Every structure is written in structure tokens, then in C-alpha cells.
């Protein structure tokens, strides 16, 4: 019986650790994608400015409240604008940005295929 309890205790501690670790992982992932507005050019994760410290806390609180990653981004873009995100979101202002590489790729492909057809002829 004692042995069982011991195993149970270890299991509980272990699962708790995993969930906590996941939480920290997601928190780090989010804060790495946030731009620090005081020390521009640094992410909130890297920065130790007062603003970044508070923002890390806000992200942690939001995760504890059950917010998803996207919900946290939405909350922060509402407060600080899209610029706070390093990874621009997909919307009507960024269509061009996202599709540009694809367009260039297709354009290059078209040139190459045209040249190849010309050589074959």
C-alpha cells in the first residue's frame, strides 16, 4: 500500500511538472514573438525593461486564465497595434507580404520554363 502511495505521489509530481513545463514553454514562445516597445529591436523575452517584465507577467496571467496563444496576441494587438508582433498576422494589410515570395517564385519558374522550352526548340 505504501509503495502504491509512493508511486502515486511521484506520478502526480511528474504530471504537474509536465503541465508546468508546457506552460513555461508556451509563455516563452509567446514572449519571443513580442517586440519590446521600450528597447525596440529586442523581444520581450530577451528584454529586462520594466515594460517587458510587466508584459511577461501579463502573458503568464493570461495563460493561467486559460487564454490561447491567438487570444493573447489579439488582446495585445488591440492594446499596442500589430507592430508588437514579430510574426505578422495574415490579414488584408499583409496579403502582399505573404504572397510576394510565392509570386517571385512563380515568376522565376515561368522565366526558367520559358527558357527551357526555347532551348528544346
Amino acid at each position, binding site marked *: 500500500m505504501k509503495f502504491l502511495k509512493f508511486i502515486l505521489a511521484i506520478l502526480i509530481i511528474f504530471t504537474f511538472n509536465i503541465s508546468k513545463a508546457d506552460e513555461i514553454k508556451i509563455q516563452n514562445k509567446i514572449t519571443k514573438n513580442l517586440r519590446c*516597445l*521600450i528597447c*525596440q529591436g529586442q523581444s520581450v523575452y530577451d528584454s529586462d525593461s*520594466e*515594460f517587458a*517584465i*510587466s*508584459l511577461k*507577467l*501579463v502573458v503568464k*496571467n493570461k495563460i493561467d486564465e486559460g487564454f490561447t496563444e491567438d487570444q493573447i496576441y489579439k488582446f495585445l*494587438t*488591440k*492594446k*499596442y*497595434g*500589430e*507592430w*508588437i508582433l514579430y510574426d505578422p498576422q495574415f490579414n488584408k494589410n499583409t496579403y502582399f507580404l505573404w504572397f510576394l515570395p510565392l509570386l517571385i517564385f512563380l515568376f522565376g519558374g515561368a522565366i526558367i520554363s520559358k527558357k527551357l522550352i526555347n532551348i528544346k526548340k
Partner: protein
Amino acid sequence: MRNRIFYFLLITFFIFAFVIFYRGLDNSNLYTPKTDVKNIPEFSSETFFKKKPINSKDIFNKDRFYLFNIWASWCVPCRDEHPLLINLGKGKKIEIIGLNYKDDFNNAEKFINELGNPYSTILLDRNGTKAIEWGAFGVPETFLIYKNRIIKRYIGPLNPKLIKEIESYIK
């Protein structure tokens, strides 16, 4: 012919790049966020002196202008704008609410005792999370509020010119 088109395109490209970069020289490289916070955010906090819990709904509930000022005793520009706030508060046309941002209580109390207290209420923000609700990212920052809406937002210290602007709003 082909060569000419090439040169034409090259020169156009360089002119285009030059204009873009030249115009960019004037732009400030400091970004001020485009915030969507138009209505005052709801938050709860503590009052500065009595440590009484208070909700934002109980503060901005009168039909008058409010000035919400984020300050800290360690912030040097706050010291500069403080006399302006005191003068503005004397007019009684506007109620000034303070948010003490990440401050040590003793230092903040000293600051108020030394320079005067223009605030009708001072709220506490010990960890800076309340300022984030407002979309603020530094001190000092000031919001002009009427009927729960943010009319104007001032990032950085107020100066006599901005005070005149505020006075023209509340006339």
C-alpha cells in the same frame, strides 16, 4: 534599343529607391503604438493611501472631464510635469486621477509630500499590469477622458503647450 530600356529601368529604379530612402530620413524611428483602446479599460486596483480596493467603474462615473496620469517617483520627466498638473487641478474643471506605476510606496509618498498632490485619487499599479490594460508602455503617460471615452492620449511628459490644448478641450 534594348540597352536603352535597360538604362531607363535602372535609372528609374535608383530614383525610386532614392526617394523612398530620402523620405525615410525624416521618419522617427521610435514607434508609437496604434492602439485600439478607445474606451477606458475595466480594471480593479487599490487606492494609494488607504489601500482600499477600487474598481475603475467607481472612478470615472461623473459627467465631467478626467485626466488619467501614469507616474512614478523614479521617473524624472514626471517631476517636470508635476507643477503643470497641480496648476491644472486648481481650475477644478477637471479631475486628475493618478496611477502610481511600479513604485516604492515611501518614495512615492515623499514625492507627493514634496511636490504637492494634484490627484483626487491615486491608484496603485505595483507590477505594471494595469498600465498594460491602458495600452501604456512607459511613464509618464496621460489620458484625457470624457464619458468613459479616451479623447486624447499623451505619451511622455506634458508641457505648457499640451496643457493649453487640454484646457481648450475642457472649456
